[in-house]
């Protein structure tokens, strides 16, 4: 009977492909971060005008840039810079934003109203524009890139966590621990937080990519990491004048960005699958 075959087809176990593929891709990037010399023997800063603007070849697989530096080497060394920015820019908003969301959701009232209005105002401006504005006030530097992203990035986590807290707050198990006479702090951190943090954690994984992109665009605009540090956005920016006759300088670092981005979003998807599928069993 045809119906039976459908049932048996569904029986095949589905493996967490997203997690595996994403994990392997990210592992490659991490390897570049910690052991760049495994991938290349060139120096990212060594200039050799004799071979400037050479297209990809066996010797220089990504080609060379206008200073004759090996592009592949610069991309490999750039992974360290970009991942560091992405991770550091994500981690602070994750903690601070989630905390604010927890406080706003749990206490409600004017605290909540105030925090949410601030958040609304910030949402009204595009993310990057706001970051640029803050950097132009603070001045160009790598540390100011972090500060600017921190100042803007918390609101997404707040929004996510707060909405989950509002749901969880009214569930019966929270009422039960309230009637047991537990303190607010204990209920917030021991009972509500573990049940609401999931979506924020999943978002954080893909947020690393978002932060990297912002940082790359800032470098591209000349506001972030300053040359000659090999940062992907900066490399693309440097290649811009030559885009018509040396496409590889812009395209291949872009590919690296896309590769890392894909790995992170696959990883995020895989993690969310595990977390929603009850990390409870």
């Amino acid at each position, binding site marked *: 009977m045809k119906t039976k075959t459908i049932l048996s087809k569904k029986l095949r176990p589905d493996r967490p492909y997203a997690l595996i593929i994403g994990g392997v891709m990210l592992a490659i990037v991490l390897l570049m971060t910690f052991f760049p010399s495994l991938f290349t023997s060139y120096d990212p800063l060594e200039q050799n005008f004799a071979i400037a603007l050479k297209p990809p070849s066996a010797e220089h697989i990504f080609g060379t840039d206008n200073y004759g530096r090996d592009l592949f080497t610069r991309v490999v060394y750039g992974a360290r810079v970009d991942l560091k920015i992405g991770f550091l820019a994500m981690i602070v908003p994750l903690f601070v934003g989630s905390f604010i969301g927890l406080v706003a959701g749990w206490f409600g009232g004017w605290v909540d109203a105030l925090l949410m209005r601030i958040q609304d105002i910030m949402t009204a401006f595009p993310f990057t524009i706001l970051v640029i504005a803050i950097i132009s006030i603070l001045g160009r530097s790598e540390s100011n890139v972090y500060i600017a992203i921190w100042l803007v990035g918390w609101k997404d986590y707040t929004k996510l966590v707060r909405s989950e807290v509002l749901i969880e707050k009214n*569930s*019966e*198990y929270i*009422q*039960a*621990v*309230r*009637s*047991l*006479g*537990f*303190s607010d702090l*204990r209920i917030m951190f*021991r*009972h509500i937080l*573990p*049940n609401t943090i999931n979506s924020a954690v999943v978002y954080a994984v893909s947020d690393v990519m978002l932060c990297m992109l912002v940082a790359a665009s800032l470098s591209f605009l000349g506001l972030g990491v300053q040359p000659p540090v090999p940062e992907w956005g900066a490399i693309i920016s440097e290649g811009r004048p030559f885009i018509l006759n040396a496409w590889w300088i812009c395209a291949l670092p872009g590919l690296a960005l896309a590769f890392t981005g894909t790995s992170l979003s696959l990883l995020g998807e895989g993690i969310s699958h595990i977390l929603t599928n*009850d*990390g*409870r*069993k």
Partner: protein
Amino acid sequence: MSEVLLSVENMVKQFPIKQTMFDVIARKPKRYVRAVDDVSFQVQKGETVGLVGESGCGKSTLAKTICRLHSPDGGKVVFDGMDMFGLRSDELRRVRYKMQMVFQDPYSSLNPRMTVRQMLTEILSVHKLCPKEERTARELEVLDMVGMGENALDRYPSQFSGGQRQRINIARALIMKPDMLIADEPVSALDVSIQAQIINLLIDLKNELDLTMLFISHDLRVVKYISDRVVVMYLGRIVEMGETEELYESPCHPYTDILLKAAPEVDPDSDGGEYVIHGETPSPIDIPGGCRFHPRCPYADEKCKTVEPPLVELWPGRCVACHHRLGGQGPA
């Protein structure tokens, strides 16, 4: 005379209705749903009081306000000599466990990320009423009381069935040795055969531990079986209360009468009687004037539409709020 453990006096709980931006601009007065409206009753030490009523009658809100899970909007609750509404929040936290609640939904009432042991240990450690080395013993004792063994300790809620979860819920409520248990529809989400297990358990525990119980349910059969006295609520007010047997035998309020007749009897030869009730419970936002029940009451007259009947005591222990009370010949 036995002593009063819980006394609720003129309790009011209302919830504001969310206004639209337009309402705020037009300065419309804030409107409220009066979920519990001037309710008074007492629970004696050691008795089981059943609280019945249809959905939206305020029985659950009443229970949660007694436990101060909702903040009250008026009235007084005296529990074991303490004015519950007058307590500061840190004082409240210290006495709260003496009055424990068992909730309806066996699924959402347990934290999915904590094992039974973590759950119980936390309670003991927060209140510091039990030395560390005796904790496990106490946990096992309370699990044993609810008919569960040691192997339950390190499991997560998702590994239990609905009936077992309800047992864990009861264990959690009992571990601090409360004086009173407020059970909010504790068996409504369970199947009949499991329901019977939990009812037996509650009755046994009540006798063993000398508990006082407020048992809230919409199921008249269960309430009849478990309670000594019954309180009937309709739209936020008490319409009738009295001894269980007496109230079921001869209801004095037309609503009680209808409620009892409408509950389908388990009897294939019964045709449900001739009596039909018309209409449905009005929304608690627009409570009818006069007697709240008059639009559905077969005996309603002009007086019922304008004058709200007070809750009067017919004889000790029996109160009714109706202008046209039925039968009720008094205690035999």
